[in-house]
């Protein structure tokens, strides 16, 4: 049995922040859990997908974040508990549903987890999703450790039902991807089925209803603030006694503040805001009044800072408030103990407690960026596209492993903003540029957000080639299934949707399906596609090499070797193709047999036929 399910009440287990959220949801009696995968949120869904059957809950990897949110809304509006999780940019997709769901409110507890990514460890931006709580009038909880991920997820359901509002639990990479001991409680199954009680004057947001419900929301926020004032999640931590210095902080910044404050010479009080929207105004004012200088320590946007300054102005509090506006703390990238220590030294005008020990600055080392794997079908596709069009095409790229094609030797990405953007931007690019335009989108991303763009392109007659790089999985985030998959989460049967049917259904007339491992065919098909008068689609279909390797069906021929006598050292296999299995040392190229996936692409592209299947 799974660690998540088997842990007994009262026991202490090591959990990832995301796993702790999953356990918290199970203990809260969640009935429906949905997600669209995305780092650093993925393990919430992956954990629930794994245990869904044994736990007796419904779980799905939805087609995208807004559908995931709508699924959860449908369930929670009926009265059962629901959780939906996503990465920060996923909430941009889901926000349309969430903003108005705050008006109707919920019956069953509704928790939306957003995992932000300060420093863009694996994201296209580092937006601060706490703004969504302010924008929508939605209560916000900010855990700072694995234990709090668990505690606050459970509490979020309680708050949600008390206020009849959705609740946002906001983590960051350093909360979701931190592992720590968690003391768990008992899993109590909740209601799974309800009889929907009709109430259109609440749940159908025609303008007259929306106007009335907005006032209800504002009233609920007043009640929410009372909960926030009384909440144990907003607590004061004294480091030393009789402090005239204070810190207001939340999330991972609380951890850095604790360690940095402990190293200061003066005593410091820390007001930790776990329930940070609505702000507990009275608690904050009281804290300000009882300290001479208060530093606001938060990653990314000055959200607490702005609110605290506004409160101080409103209440005519003269306490010195120091934050990003004073340049004490940066507005970009994640913090650590030393950034916070430096900021506190500026804010409090004190000497820094433990200046970090000077250390070796590593000289320039060979870089190790993430690359397309040995046998990756995307590599083969990009090679073929390079052969077919050279550098003259403009490439609209999208979110997934294949974005790595931006690097040499392929240089196969010229524009990328968000999930599904390849298709939409390709239309605009084709409209105003003379060059041919090729859009690349993954299979999961195509289903997620590519379909409306495709219909738009067909309808308006935009001329470009859309290549759907179909590796049969959502590879980048850990191989989650998508609508064309035939295997889903543990709980439920699923139906595979045909990608070809979808593409044809969008009105596409010119569609080809190729195996990218067939380099010549793929190259010729790209050339032919670019001759079409309107939009053309190529589905380049070949299973992700990591899955093929895992399932031991990798080698379609056999592992390959270079015949050094036949090799003319032309370096085509390392300069024009990119395979981690092929290395070049002292002008001699070799194929690492332990890494070779047997895709045979290198053998096809070698101008001297020097690469062959191993005996």
């Amino acid at each position: 049995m799974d660690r998540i399910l088997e842990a007994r009440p009262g026991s202490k287990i090591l959990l990832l922040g995301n796993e702790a959220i999953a356990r918290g949801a199970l203990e809260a009696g969640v009935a429906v859990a949905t997600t669209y995968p995305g780092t650093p949120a993925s393990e919430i869904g992956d954990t629930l997908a794994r245990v869904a059957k044994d736990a007796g809950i419904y779980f799905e990897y939805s087609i995208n974040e807004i559908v995931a949110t709508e699924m959860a809304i449908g369930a929670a509006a009926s009265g059962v508990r629901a959780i939906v999780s996503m990465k920060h940019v996923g909430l941009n997709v889901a926000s349309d549903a969430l903003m108005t769901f705050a008006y109707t409110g919920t019956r069953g507890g509704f928790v939306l987890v957003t995992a932000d990514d300060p420093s863009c460890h694996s994201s296209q931006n580092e937006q601060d999703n706490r703004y969504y709580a302010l924008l929508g009038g939605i209560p916000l909880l900010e855990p700072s450790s694995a234990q709090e991920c668990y505690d606050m997820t459970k509490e979020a359901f309680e708050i949600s039902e008390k206020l009849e509002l959705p609740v946002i639990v906001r983590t960051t990479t350093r909360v979701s991807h931190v592992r720590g001991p968690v003391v768990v409680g008992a899993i109590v199954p909740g209601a799974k089925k309800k009889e929907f009680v009709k109430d259109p004057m609440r749940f159908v947001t025609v303008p007259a209803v929306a106007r009335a419900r907005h006032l209800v929301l504002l009233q609920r926020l007043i009640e929410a603030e009372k909960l926030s004032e009384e909440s144990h999640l907003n607590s004061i931590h004294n480091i030393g006694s009789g402090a005239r210095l204070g810190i207001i902080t939340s999330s991972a910044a609380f951890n850095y503040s604790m360690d940095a404050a402990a190293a200061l010479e003066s005593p410091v009080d820390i007001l930790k805001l776990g329930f940070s929207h609505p702000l507990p105004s009275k608690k904050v004012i009281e804290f300000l009044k009882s300290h001479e200088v208060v530093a606001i320590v938060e990653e990314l946007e000055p959200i607490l800072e702005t609110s605290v300054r506004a409160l101080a102005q409103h209440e005519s509090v003269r306490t010195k408030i120091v934050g990003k506006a004073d340049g004490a703390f940066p507005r970009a990238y994640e913090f650590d103990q030393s950034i916070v220590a430096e900021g506190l030294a500026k804010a409090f005008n004190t000497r820094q407690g433990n200046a970090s020990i000077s250390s070796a600055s590593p000289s320039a080392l060979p870089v190790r960026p993430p690359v397309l794997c040995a046998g990756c079908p995307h590599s083969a596709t990009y090679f073929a596209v390079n052969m077919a069009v050279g550098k003259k095409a403009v490439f609209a790229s999208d979110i997934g492993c294949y974005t790595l094609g931006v690097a040499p030797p392929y240089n196969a990405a010229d524009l990328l903003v968000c999930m599904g953007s390849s298709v939409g931007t390709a239309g605009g690019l084709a409209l105003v540029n003379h060059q041919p335009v090729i859009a690349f989108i993954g299979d999961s991303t195509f289903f997620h957000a590519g379909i409306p763009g495709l219909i738009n392109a067909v309808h308006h007659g935009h001329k470009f080639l859309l290549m759907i790089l179909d590796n049969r999985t959502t590879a980048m985030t850990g191989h989650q299934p998508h609508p064309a998959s035939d295997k889903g989460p543990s709980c439920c049967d699923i139906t595979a949707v045909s990608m070809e049917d979808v593409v044809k259904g969008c009105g596409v007339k010119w569609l080809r399906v190729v195996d990218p491992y067939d380099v010549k065919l793929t190259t010729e098909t790209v050339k032919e596609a670019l001759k079409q008068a309107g939009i053309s689609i190529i589905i380049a279909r070949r299973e992700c090499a990591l899955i093929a390797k895992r399932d031991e069906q990798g080698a379609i021929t056999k592992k390959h070797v270079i015949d050094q006598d036949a090799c003319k050292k032309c370096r085509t296999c390392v300069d024009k193709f990119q395979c981690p299995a092929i290395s070049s040392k002292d002008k001699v190229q070799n194929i690492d047999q332990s890494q070779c996936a047997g895709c045979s692409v290198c053998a096809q592209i070698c101008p001297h036929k020097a690469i062959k299947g191993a005996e």
Partner: protein
Amino acid sequence: MVDVYLVGVGGQGIITASKIIGDAAILSGKKVVLSETHGMAQRGGSVVCTARIGDMSSALILDGQADVIVSFELLETLRALNKASGKTIVITSTEQIVPLSISTQKLHYPTLEEVRIEVGKVAKIFIQVDAPKLAEDSSVPKSSNIVMVGALAGTGVTGIERRHFEKAVEMNIPRWVPENLEAFAKGFQVAQGT
């Protein structure tokens, strides 16, 4: 407080190793916080895990602050040296995973001797572990990461007893327990003998 900084390349089992350290710490009644950075690591990028054992809140390890660096790959040892200072023990696997940049940009992959010299300039102790070979000998070729955990345990720096490490290995890899414990013992021995 003990700061353990683990580095290597995606696919080397570093996260599993960090979980074993975390479980062992809990079993021995210590406080522990682990973090992992692996966004696109599955695609052959560098992986970093931190394990901080003791009474603190932050998960990250500052420059110069690592008590132990456990490097699962030779080149990555050099990349981790900004975390080292005069107190640091550096445990390095001799395993080499040559990045593409070596071939495409015609760069130099460091030799073991070069790594030893660079480590010697900043750190206190250098322990070299032929992890792939020792793993092979213990009949689970994929147990290099367990060999490295064994070496960490063998230094005694974490203050966690051997039996807690061994129990944690069992908890995290329920299959192949005797073989993995053998791999652990081989790593343990190397560190003890250094």
